[in-house]
């Protein structure tokens, strides 16, 4: 008995191969489209901005002369902002994730919290800006300070950190817990000695990607009233500040062509910082990741 009718297969084969080829090309062009756009963007920014990139650009304050304009205040402001946002959002985010995954009992309330966190990740950033303006700037009277900006940014990226930390914790095999509990360890001992070391690569990768988002955001900071011109460096978290994206945004809106080129230079610096942060995330993941 002939189980397979070779003739039928023969007939259908060419059609299948064509289909396969077609799909191959389709997915390739989907990938290529993104890459081409990225290359065009990078080429434009680099060709426009590289000419202006020098030490003076990094060490000058903003100026009405494009050739003297620099981003000193903006870079330092961005770093200050990160210095507030990173610890606050990481501590709160990882704490929330551990509580939800390890301690909280599964009931309606935790499901409600869980759902809200996922939803918060999709709220437009300008809404967090409004929240920051009412709560931090006005209600808590922090003024238009780095503290207010940093806390607003923390809120913005908190949901992302919580969700990615939860994923990282959930990925740890159950038998690791069981082994720890079998040795008589308490929950906290298990979390500290087993869960966190195993989950830290995932948590930090998510955290750094979230911080990268925060460093590129403009809208919420404009909302809370971050400044556009300052010619001094902030000395504590209560100072006024400006950040790189605001400075870039400001330059692109100017009538003078030269300022658009300066904006491109600013974008290059921002890109380098972002690449630097992302590569830290990659290094952490590769260095600490354990396979089970």
């Amino acid at each position, binding site marked *: 008995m002939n189980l397979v009718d070779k003739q039928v297969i023969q007939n259908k084969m060419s059609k299948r191969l064509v289909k396969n080829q077609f799909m191959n090309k389709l997915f390739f062009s989907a990938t290529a489209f993104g890459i081409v756009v990225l290359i065009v963007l990078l080429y434009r920014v680099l060709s426009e901005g590289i000419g202006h990139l020098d030490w003076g650009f990094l060490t000058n304050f903003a100026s*009405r002369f494009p050739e003297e304009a620099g981003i000193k205040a903006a870079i330092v402001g961005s770093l200050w902002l990160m210095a507030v946002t990173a610890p606050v959002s990481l501590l709160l985010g990882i704490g929330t994730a551990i509580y939800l995954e390890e301690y909280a009992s599964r009931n309606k309330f935790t499901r409600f919290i869980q759902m809200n966190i996922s939803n918060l990740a999709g709220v437009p950033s300008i809404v967090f800006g409004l929240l920051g303006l009412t709560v931090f700037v006005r209600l808590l009277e922090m003024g238009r300070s780095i503290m207010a900006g940093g806390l607003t940014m923390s809120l913005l990226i908190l949901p992302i950190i919580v969700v990615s930390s939860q994923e990282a914790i959930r990925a740890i095999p159950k038998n690791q817990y069981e082994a720890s509990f079998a040795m008589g360890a308490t929950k906290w001992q298990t979390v500290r000695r087993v869960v966190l070391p195993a989950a830290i690569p995932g948590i930090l990768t998510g955290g750094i990607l979230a911080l990268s988002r925060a460093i590129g955001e403009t809208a919420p900071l*404009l909302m809370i009233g971050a400044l556009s011109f300052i010619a001094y460096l902030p000395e504590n978290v209560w*100072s006024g500040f400006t950040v790189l994206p605001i400075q870039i945004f400001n330059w692109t*809106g100017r*009538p003078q062509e030269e300022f658009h080129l300066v904006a491109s230079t600013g974008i290059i610096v921002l890109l380098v910082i972002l690449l630097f942060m992302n590569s830290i995330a990659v290094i952490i993941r590769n260095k600490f990741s354990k396979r089970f």
Partner: protein
Amino acid sequence: MKSKSLILTLGMSLLVLLLAACGNAEGSKNSEGNGDGEKSTKEIMVDGSSTVFPIMEAVAEEYQAANPDTRVNIGVSGSGGGFEKFVAGETHISNASRPIKEEEKALLEENGIEYTEFEVALDGLSIVVNKENDWVDQLTVEELTKMWSEDGGVKTWADVREGWPDKEIEFYSPGADSGTFDYFSEVVLEDKQIRQDASLSEDDNVLVQGVTGSPNGIGYFGYAYYAENKDNLKVVPIVNSDGEAVKPSQETIQSGEYNPFSRPLFIYVKNEALQNDSVYEFTKYTLENAGEMAKAVGYVAKPESKYEEALKKVEELAGK
């Protein structure tokens, strides 16, 4: 066990609150520059219009270089956003590319904030068409009203004036949040609705590109954007109140010949803040140098005598 964890949680939240509160006290000491007699802080808070920003940035740059111990902070929240902060008492000086509105005046009065208006420079709203457009020689305000309003019934250039080509016009306008839009609608549209098919953008450079790219386009924006793109745009002379068609230029805007589209740019200063030496000095410095700085960044200076009048007013208000 349960109660213990509850106490721990409560304790932690208390600690967090306490920290926040401490932070507060410090914060209000250092960063809140309300201007009431705080002579030690030397912090000047400015916010408002993005149109006025380049002038104030230039002034602040120079002032800061001469007075390193004073800190000038300038934000860009837009004319309306700036007034909101001015009303809340968060700023000393508010930049605006339009006069203050009645409701904003009322709010300021409610909060007991007295202020003085100064004109720091002039801007000429420039109406431009594509370089290839060889038929438009001049436009009247009535024609503009007909063209830009929703119920004006204009579709093509032929609808505006007979003899012009039968080609569909493309409209480019600044976004409804900008002071430029406010001014244009007040002068041209009065209370009418702007046409729905106009392309609106908050970024004036997008408008420049729009008109440059469409042979039948028309748009309007601040003089600086025209002056920077003179080679790619054709500016339309506008018939003024004396019946003459005038192009915007440094001279015609300053003299007021280019009307009704030459508009003043304002700063609003809180009177009380002028008692503070650094705000007083900065305001004086602004009025002394605004003309020159305005020219440097693409705007037009007011006649010298106007600045002198304004300076006298500042001295009077400060009681000096």
